[in-house]
């Protein structure tokens, strides 16, 4: 079992309105088989034992699906490995003596709650603006009544994999939520069930995104690089197309 020691430079901020600062810690004798968050657990155990407040970081399922975790590690959202959430990153991706700078996802629309924890409720409000199919419980026809071409179903699934972690926002030079939003728009508009609301959906979701204070897309595609689920920027193209057509036809 290999053990390493790394230097952590971590953003500490007590609350949303407090001033933040960087603080240095050492994570000593960390097993390289440990996950990144387990390394933080070890550091935090040490801090608590000394009566200091541990580093706050969001996490829950620790298997890369709930979308709770996430931080910027040395300038990369979710860290250096592709298509992984922070909880799936392991310490074997680092070497003994490395310095790791840990920052929260930064965006005006995602205010910092504490240290590395940010408030992502803005993403919920984007979904509330139209990221659903309005079907009342009990009113659905038989599941096989409307066949869906396999290609469309696969594309819908592909887009629907978004875990809402906001890494796309963190990685975007403009702090835009376009990838997350476009994934939802494309998921629903790829399916026949999503058609009736598709025009209004895209218009409403985009206006909500603007209202929340996210930036716009400048086609830098860093969201795709950061996305732990590998969601493609082709969905942003799809959103753009739908937006254009819907805006022209709107009143």
């Amino acid at each position: 079992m290999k053990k390493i020691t790394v230097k952590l430079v971590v953003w500490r901020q007590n609350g949303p309105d407090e001033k933040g600062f960087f603080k240095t810690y050492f994570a000593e004798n960390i097993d390289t088989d440990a996950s990144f968050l387990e390394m933080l657990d070890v550091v935090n155990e040490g801090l608590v034992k000394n009566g200091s407040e541990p580093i706050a970081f969001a996490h829950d399922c620790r298997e890369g699906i709930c979308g709770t975790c996430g931080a910027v590690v040395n300038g990369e959202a979710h860290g250096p490995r592709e298509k992984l959430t922070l909880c799936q990153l392991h310490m074997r991706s680092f070497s003994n003596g490395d310095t790791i700078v840990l920052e929260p996802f930064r965006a005006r629309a995602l205010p910092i709650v504490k240290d590395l924890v940010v408030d992502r409720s803005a993403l919920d409000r984007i979904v509330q603006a139209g990221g659903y199919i309005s079907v009342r419980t009990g009113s659905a026809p038989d599941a096989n009544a409307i066949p869906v071409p396999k290609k469309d179903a696969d594309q819908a699934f592909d887009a629907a994999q978004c875990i809402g972690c906001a890494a796309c926002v963190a990685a975007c030079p403009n702090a835009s939520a376009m990838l997350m939003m476009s994934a939802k728009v494309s998921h629903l508009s790829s399916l026949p069930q999503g058609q009736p609301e598709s025009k209004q959906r895209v218009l409403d979701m985009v206006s909500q995104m603007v209202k929340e204070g996210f930036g716009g897309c400048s086609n830098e595609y860093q969201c795709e690089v950061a996305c732990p689920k590998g969601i493609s920027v082709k969905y942003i193209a799809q959103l753009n197309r739908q937006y254009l057509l819907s805006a022209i036809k709107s009143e």
Partner: protein
Amino acid sequence: MSQHDVSKRKTLDSKIPEGALSEKWTQHKFNMKLVNPANKRKYKVIVVGTGLAGASASATLSELGYQVHTFCFHDTPRRAHSIAAQGGINAAKNYQNDGDSIYRLFYDTIKGGDFRAREANVHRLAEISVNIIDQCVAQGVPFAREYGGLLDNRSFGGAQVSRTFYAKGQTGQQLLLGAYSALMKQVNAGAVTMYTEHEMMDLVIIDGKARGIVTRNLKTGEIASHTADAVLLCTGGYGNVFYLSTNAMGSNVTAAWKAHKRGAYFANPCYTQIHPTCIPVHGDYQSKLTLMSESLRNDGRVWVPKKVGDDRHPSEIPDDERDYYLERKYPSFGNLVPRDLASRNAKYVCDEGRGVGPTKLAVYLDFRDSINRLGKDAIEARYGNLFDMYQSITDSNPYEEPMMIYPAVHYTMGGLWVDYNLMSNIEGLFVLGEANFSDHGANRLGASALMQGLADGYFVISYTLGNYLANVDLNSISLENESFLSAEKDVQERIERLLSIRGTKTVDEFHRELGLLMWDKCGMSRNEEGLKEAIRRIPEIRKSFWNDVMVTGSNNSFNQTLEKALRVADFLEFAETMCRDALERKESCGGHFREDSQTPEGEALRNDTEFTNVFAWEFKGIDNKPELHIEELEFENVQPSVRSYK
């Protein structure tokens, strides 16, 4: 419990409707009273939890017109651990024309639960299963499809029919996002008031009825009360009592336990499902376990070295020095024996000292023979993503050396006791999903958890809640009511007490200690002596916790240490009840092997004469023994039989 005590048992009324099994739910739906549409908006319903059950119930009830207030401790209602379910969701659609039916799904579930579930509930679940799929497809859940555009099915967990609907390995995620989007729709319509990052700290009962909750705002620490006409707990399972489990880090027993302390009965708490194919523990710092699909056992062969202490690399161990123990003991099922047998036997070989890997708590799952027989490409096509996941976590290449696996706690069948209407013994307190005990008996079948969560939330509670509200007389209450004030004060005091201890050990150290004890004494295999020891030791750990835990920070801001401490404090109380339940259930059933109840060949021995029942425990104070209530289970349609896999 001896036969002698039987007369003292209080029996519980499950309120199962009269009539033939297949007519019960239909008749009951007709017989139940309805709330006038104009009156529905006068009722306020609190839903705690936003997993499959909570999100679907919130959306459905608000569509009906009730004022719904929904609470979750996550930062958004899309994070609950339902999201991590991989395999699929069962439904008796019989789209494959392979002989499935509602009755067959019912039968399989009852049998799978080792005859410890209620027939009527399970039949209702099977009936509703078909509506769930319709509902989810209409919401845009992207289930796998065939080239003709119709839904695809697969056979799952050893079922003989293909009735499992799936969305790659992310079915739970897609179903939860479907329910979440329905919930978001209702929030947008102003029909649901959503409280994220609010943890339920207590249940408030007034005049014997559940009338509200006390919450803690996790961001600000604010303690607040909320009134309601009914409270729905959809708060999931308690697998984290074992510290290491496949549950999310935040999954906890707090909401259910607080309700229990206010009088709700906890049923069959010792029923825990252990999943055989998880990635083994690799060190003391380990925070959680990762499950890999059981389908791996279709082509992988499970083995350990024959000799104790054989430290050679697996490739250097010749075949005649390997023990393919599942194939040896169960020649007809081999590596495909059910979850409980696979798990238990892995434990046995490790207990014998034949475990492998650095911790000696693992067994090999070897694909060498399948790769030789079918080719690497065929194996990659079947398990590519699982192999990648395994390699990403363990840094070992399963194409070249055998995987290492070990069982892990995965799901808890026990939960708060509910009647047929999903109402607990406290009026107005409903419990849905994994948080209740009702449908899975002593062992849950694969792809049934998602089905139950959604059935409860979309299609059961919408009727039974109405029936309750239409029949009950509710006084108007205010937050100034003494019960709210005193509950808030209790919560405040508990928090202050935790913060003032300033001891020497961390919350995780206590949690780990408890978890190891529970895994050891109340895990896959139990005996009277071990359980008694656990019952003796848990109060000691609890006492030490309350004297020596270190909780940093304050209550007026975001404080994850405090959140964790509050949850672990409840696990420390709950664990004792769990062990008592295990101690009283002197039979082996489902995944629960009681060493003093086995056949001469060492197989599980169920005791139908004494234990065809549900144990429901009533809280009698922290250091007092809870009181046992019994619900007798009646099998009118299916004759309990013995499972055999030899």
